[in-house]
């Protein structure tokens, strides 16, 4: 196992809550498929949260689209390592655009957890921060521990990005489940972003 993959293993539930507690400026958050967005849901409802119910791998592309449409707002994409591997070319697209208001966070449990915990290449050979750097994303970091994760998030919310933050996480099951109503999720998000008003 490469040295770079030996990192402190943290809790996705805990870090998602830490992240959400730092959001004071109606930042948009796009939660990737599965347990990534379950934890986002569990961290408390915000109108600026978008929950994916499929389209594996599209959290960062969707977040990029929001960031392009709303350049003054910080946009955060949350993605699993398996999902990132499926759409890894998106990193190069984001780097080429140098999307300054975009923050990417990868929860790396080294597995496809929701489908039974099958190991992903990230468990052994693939270093997602290495992938991000090789794709041209200079501000790409592994969070060493919880305090370091918070520091990185603070930077990502104040400095120009794009930022890419990866964390090794454990396999704990989320306590909550996202309410699977795509139309309501989308409408609420658009209202949360000021694109729509309630009728």
């Amino acid at each position: 196992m490469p040295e770079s993959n030996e990192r402190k293993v943290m809790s996705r539930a805990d870090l998602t809550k830490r992240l959400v507690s730092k959001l004071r400026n109606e930042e948009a958050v796009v939660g990737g498929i599965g347990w990534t967005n379950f934890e986002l849901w569990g961290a408390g409802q915000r109108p600026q949260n978008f929950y994916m119910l499929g389209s594996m791998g599209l959290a960062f592309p969707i977040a990029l689209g929001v960031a392009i449409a709303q350049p003054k707002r910080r946009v955060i994409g949350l993605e699993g390592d398996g999902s990132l591997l499926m759409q890894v070319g998106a990193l190069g697209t984001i780097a080429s655009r140098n999307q300054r208001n975009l923050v990417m966070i990868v929860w790396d449990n080294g597995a496809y957890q929701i489908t039974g915990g099958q190991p992903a290449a990230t468990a052994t050979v693939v270093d997602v921060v290495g992938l991000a750097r090789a794709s041209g994303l200079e501000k790409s970091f592994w969070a060493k521990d919880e305090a370091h994760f918070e520091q990185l998030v603070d930077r990502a919310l104040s400095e120009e990005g794009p930022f890419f933050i990866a964390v090794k996480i454990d396999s704990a099951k989320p306590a909550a489940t996202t309410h699977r109503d795509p139309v309501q999720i989308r409408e609420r998000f658009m209202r949360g972003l000021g694109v729509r008003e309630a009728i």
Partner: protein
Amino acid sequence: MSSAEPDGQRAWHEIIRDVLKENNVRLATYVPDNVLSPLIRGLHADPFFTTFCCAREEEAVGVATGAWLGGTLGVVLMQTSGFATLPNVLASLAVPYQIPLLMIISERGTLGEFNLGQAMVCRTMRPALESMGIENHTLRRLDEVAFVVDRTVSQAVSTQAPAAIILNALLTGGKVEKKREV
């Protein structure tokens, strides 16, 4: 004069660019295709549009979807084989979340196709669109381009539903094999 009225002056790709602009379609994401290249060039050349290449068509759909959520209407350009990679994200994102995702697809695989693989892929396209109930129109005539594109965009937005415009070789000339001695 609105571009919805034919003028016989402009090429198909100029009409499409102008009609997209009139409908405030500001973002264009694509995976390259030879037949689409004049349209891609035209969009890149016009600063009204934010135009960029993605690594996969799914990714291009994700970006256009996010942009719509943030208040910007977009279009995704691709060839037939690119569309064939999309059913999962159309069925799990664009359709259930009611996204007016506009797709412009250059049709390879018919009317003089020389690559059997392209021909097979092409046969999957309309059944896939129909199975998801996605509105689609095939453009074959220059004088219909402006009307069809204009109405397709406005309907997609009004009904909050994805839509596809297929560019047939009768309109674009398509892509043909260089003639060789038999």
